[in-house]
Each structure stands twice: as C-alpha cells, then as structure tokens.
C-alpha cells in the first residue's frame, strides 16, 4: 500500500460534491426537457443572470452572508455529531432579539456599538432557543432531532406573539419591530452594494476553521463526533461539549438572523422565516463538513437561489425548480459518497476494521444511539 493511496488528494472529497452537483443538474435538465422546457435555455439564463449581471453577483454575495454564518454554526454541531435541525427557529428568535435591541438603542449609541449590541442579542436569542433542546439532551438524553424540530414550531408562535404584542412598533399597522433607519444599518463594502455582513460571514467561517484546526475545544468536538465512546473514555466532558456544540450552533444561527436584520431588513416582521436551514444542511454536506469549503459552496448555493429565481420567471419555469434541484443534489451526493467510499482504501479498511466488528458486536446499551442519549450509561454509573 503506497502512501499516495493512503492520503487522498485534498480535492477528492470536494470532487465528489462537484460530481453530485453536475449529476443533479443533468437530472434536473432531463426533467425540464421531459416537461417540455428547454434545459439549455434555463441553465444558460441561470448563469447569465446569476453571474453575468452586477445585481446577480451583488445579491448572491448578500445572500451568502447569512448562509455562511448559519452553515458555520451547523458545521460545529454536525462535526460534534449533534443534529441541530432547529436552525430556522434559532434564527427567527435571534433576528427578533436583534431587531428589538437594535431599534431600542439605534441613534442613542454609536452605530458600531449598536451593531455589536444587536449581534450579541441575536446570538443570545439563538443560544436561548438552542438551550432548551441542549438541556433536554444532556439532562434527559432526549434526541435533539425531534426537540430542535419542535422548537421551530414553538419559535414561529412565540416570535409571532411577541411581534404582535410586546415588541410591536405601535406606529405602524403590520406586526413588526421598529425600523432601524437605513443609514444606521451595516454599511457596504467599499461601495460594492454588498453590506459588511459578508465579511462577518467570512470571518465566522475562518474562526470556525481555526476552532477545529487549532483549539482544544475544536479538537474535542471532532473526537466527540467521530467516536463518542472514545471521547468519554479519554475523559472529555462530553455533556459540556454537546452543550457547547448545540449552543454555538444556535448562537451562530441567531447571529445570521441579526445579520439579516442589520444588513438588509432593518426590522423583524411576524412570520418572517427565510428557511436557510435546509440550504445550510445541503451546503455543509456538500462542503464535506470542512469549514473552509463552506465558502465556495455557499457562493454556489446562493447563486443558485438568486439565479434560479431570476431564471424561472422569464422562462415560465416554476420557481420551485431550485428547491427540487437542491434535493436532487443531496440525493446525488448521497450516491456519490457511496462510490467514494468503496473506491477509497480507507473505506475498505474501515470495512474490515469496523464493518464486521461492529456487525458482530452485541448491541450495547444504547451506545452510539442516534435517537436517545445513552441513558443507560449514567445509570451504569459512568461519570
């Protein structure tokens, strides 16, 4: 076995994603053709509008900011083996908090301070929303997939109630927080039309990258995600790490909400739910859970959303095409990872070492249990 075979090219994982994207676009094209649309025209317009127009590029970059932040957060939880499906709810609560705080202090303190306050409030909101599933998981071993999902519905209702009542701007008819004047919102990057939220997004991704590459916490989160039992064995504070993963993920979702409020919307409206959650999932997987690859894929998905919208209307293609394409990409990605696995020497080794071994293990007491935390562990007296 040569060393070259052992260490796959650093592009290899991303090539898998690219193959999946190409496959999905071909399938999507075939689908369009079957429905009597011209796929070449569609993709042609997608690229010409999304990449060939200034506003296409600008809007793509603006849309990237929240995607970057949300995905960086999701990455933290997924790398730690924690499923945070509650991104959307955390983002809503974070956005509401940011909207309330920002409009309350706008004009009374310097803008940068106001932004900071709002960003902190947004992170606090997202964190608060992730706290409930986090506690349920750590304290009662409740699976976070279900609880974070349920918290999304609760978030919709709670933010809606708040924005209709306690924090509503009394001077306007619709339920919304007080507007942050445009001149007090995040400024553009050197006259580009793209607000500095993009920079925040890039910095957050870089920080997350540093977290995993260079810090003890990141190292531990990675170990936790790869082998929970080994993390316990090595004396890592797994409960605290689980908590950190969910809370960090929630806080960043909240920050993304704050970013949209401060950079684009200027206020929080009832029922506002941009639904970045699913896109972030697709994105983080396509980036192969690697922090820095999030950047190009965020650009791509953002481009797809913006360009797709612009392409659909003139061609009479329902805008839902992009959503379908996203689903297709994930499905193709799933298939692609299989081929990647069987072709890689590590995949084979994994098969030998853990395949039959795992298969041969008697089912342990809820260890590695994806749905409930190993309750039996604590009953068994493990620290």
């Amino acid at each position, binding site marked *: 076995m040569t060393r070259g075979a052992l*260490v796959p090219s*650093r592009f290899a994982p991303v090539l898998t994603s690219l193959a999946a994207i190409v496959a999905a676009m071909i399938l999507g094209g075939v689908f369009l053709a079957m429905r009597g649309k011209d796929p070449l025209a569609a993709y042609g317009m997608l690229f010409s509008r999304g990449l060939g*127009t*200034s*506003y*296409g*590029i*600008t*809007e793509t*970059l*603006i*849309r*990237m900011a929240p995607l970057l932040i949300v995905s960086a957060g999701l990455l933290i939880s997924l790398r730690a083996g924690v499923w945070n499906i509650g991104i959307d709810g955390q983002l809503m609560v974070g956005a509401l908090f940011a909207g309330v705080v920002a409009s309350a202090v706008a004009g009374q303190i310097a803008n940068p301070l106001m932004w900071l306050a709002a960003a902190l409030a947004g992170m606090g909101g997202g964190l608060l929303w992730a706290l409930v599933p986090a506690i349920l998981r750590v304290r009662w071993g409740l699976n976070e997939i279900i609880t974070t999902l349920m918290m999304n519905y609760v978030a*919709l209702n709670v933010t*809606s109630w708040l924005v*209709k009542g306690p924090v509503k701007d009394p*001077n*306007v*008819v*619709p*339920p*919304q927080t007080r*507007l942050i004047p*445009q001149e007090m919102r995040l400024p*553009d*990057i*050197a*006259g*580009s*039309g*793209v607000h500095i939220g*993009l*920079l925040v997004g*890039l910095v957050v*991704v*870089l920080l997350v*990258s540093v977290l995993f*590459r260079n810090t003890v916490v990141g190292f531990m989160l990675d170990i936790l995600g790869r082998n929970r039992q080994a993390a316990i064995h090595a004396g890592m504070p797994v409960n605290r790490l689980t908590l950190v993963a969910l809370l960090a993920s929630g806080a960043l979702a909240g920050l993304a909400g704050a970013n949209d409020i401060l950079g*684009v*919307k*200027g*206020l929080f*409206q*009832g*029922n*506002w739910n*941009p*639904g970045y959650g699913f896109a972030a999932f697709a994105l983080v997987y396509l980036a192969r859970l*690697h*922090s*820095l*690859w999030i*950047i*190009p894929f965020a650009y791509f998905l953002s481009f797809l959303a913006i360009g797709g*919208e*612009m392409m659909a*209307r*003139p061609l009479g293609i329902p*805008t*839902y095409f992009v959503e379908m394409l996203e689903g297709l990409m994930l499905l193709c990605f799933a298939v692609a990872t299989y081929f990647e696995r069987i072709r890689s020497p590590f995949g084979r080794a994994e098969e030998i070492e853990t395949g039959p071994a795992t298969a041969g293990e008697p089912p342990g007491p809820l260890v590695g249990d994806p749905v409930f935390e190993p309750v039996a562990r604590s009953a068994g007296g493990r620290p």
Partner: protein
Amino acid sequence: MNRHRGRLGIIAASAVLVQATLSGSILAQDATPAATPGAGVTVEQIAVVTPSARTNQGWDQQAADAVDSVAAAAGIEPVVAENGGYDDITPILRDLAAGGAGLIICHASGYQTVCPEFAAESGVPVAVIENPGAVAPGLVADIETQAQEVAYLAGVLAGNTTETGTVGVVVSGEPPTWNYMTVGFAEGLKAANADATMLYSVIGEAAYDDAAGAKRVTEQQLAADADVIFGMGDGASFGMIQAIEEHNAAEGATKAWFIDVIGDKKVEHGDVLLSSVLFDYTGIYTQMLDDLAAGTFGDIYTMDVQNGGVRLLDLPEDLAQETKDAVAEAEAAIVDGSLTVSAISDAEEMKAKVAELFPE
C-alpha cells in the same frame, strides 16, 4: 496537508471579496438614473411581487390579475413575480428593474420597508401596502384598503341570511387585513341582526396554507350551529369550503353558506358561495400609471366602497330581496358618509371590539 487547505480557504475567501468589490463597480455603471419627481414617465412594463403563488384565488391572484388586465388595457407588458415569500426580496426587485419595470407593485405588507428603500436606491417607482409614512413623490405610492367597509356589507349579508342566528368567522392568522375585516364584519352583523351570535376561530399562526386545519375548524363552527362562515384564509379557504360542502351534503343539514374574501371561486364552488369580498386593484393601478405619466405619482391610493376598489361579489340571483336591499342600503350609507365602519388592525383591539359588540 492542513496548511494547504488553509491556503485554499483564504484564496476562496479573497476571490469572494474581489468579486464583491468588482460587482460594486459594475453596479455603479449600470445603475438606473433616478426618476425626477414632477416630470412625466412613460411606463413600458408594470410588475408586481406577490408573497405566494398567484394561483391561490386569493390575495396574490387579485393583484396579479389586476396587473395583467391593466397592462393589457394600456398596451404595456405585465410581469408577475410570485412566491416572493417574506424573505429579502431585493434580488427580485433588482431583477425586475433590470428587466425594465417602470412600476413595481409590492403586494405584501411585509414588503413595506424594503420596497421604498429599493425605490430610493434605484429610482424605480414602487407601490406599497399600508405604509402611508413611506410615500415619496415620484417614487413611492401607498395603497390603503378600506376592507372593513366591504366586510361590513358582508356582515349585513350574513346577518340577513343566517337562519340559526349563528355566524362564524374563520381566519388563517391575524394579519392587519384580516383584523380590519373581522371588525367590519362584526359591526355589519350586529347592525343587521342584533341577536346573532358570532364565533371566531384562528386556524393557527400563519396557517395560510393549512387547508386541513381550516377544514377542522370550520367543521367545529358548523357543529356549533353556524350556517354562514366568513372565511379569510388564502389557500386554507379551500378547506373551509370543503367542510361546508360536506356539511351541506349530509342528510337533514341546514344549508350553510360561505363568504369568501379576495377572490372569486363562484365557478367551482357556486353552490356554497354566498358572496365574496373583492379587492379590485385595476382602478388604482391604472390611476398610478396615469399619475406616473402626469408626473404626479406618489400619493396614498385608497380602495374603498365608494370608488369600487372593494366590493362584494354579485349576490346569488335567488337571494331574498330584502337581504339584497339591506346590503344596498348599507352600501349607500357608507358611500354617502352617513355610516363609518371602525378600522382596527391590531389583533387585541379587534378582539376587544368584537367582545364589546357580542357580549357574553
């Protein structure tokens, strides 16, 4: 290996930044010159952004259809950008502007901030819903709908039609428009039938598409003896209609009626449709085009009973004459100003008002 990855990421990041800067300079080149207030503008293309699909035979469709018919009449091009959602619609606005839209209707109260800001930035005139504060000459017009007036007429209609004396209101959320109409309806009902009972149910928070939930709620209201349902639901309305149709199909049931809002479902559901509150935007859209040409755009445009912007769908032929008379009478009173309907947008105030009208 790790170090390489790091470099890659930095390259990717800088590529993005470079593009951001580049796009800025491109934008600077092709920015549309701002319209000058006072000077007339000929609109070649009128566009509308709707939050949901235009096919919901409701809120979105009324605006989209109006844009189509106004454009046809004026011989200009209509563009309907549907499914805008409540997300940031700036990309859509930019795209519409780049496509040559001379007037953009922002057909959701959720767009009332982003659109004026976009107009200021791009110079493309826009019309928003329910934001009189944003009005700017030549740039931003505001559409106010006196929906409570026509809802009052619906209340009068319901009060005269009900045989059980119980009338239901089903809403798919509590947005301002629904609240205006609930209050108007309640006042009309009270005026027409002082002994009536009014039931009020919310399907859920933002349950605009929850047809199944709507059906359940409506069934419960029908069981509580309501025989006229005033339903404000968008997509959810289909669930209400389904409930009423099934109710009527049952043996020995008292026939129940549905009063719809914003849309005409007569062709398919004429058997249960008593009437519908129609928002007819053609008038004000035409007015806007005219004002743009004359250089007087940028005002509050009101749709009310008087100007026909809001009206009831033609009542069924076989409806009792006295009912028709009662509705006509109320309509006349509103038009001549002798009757004023309360305009309440807030959910809590709306509930207080209804409780006052129909005390326990």
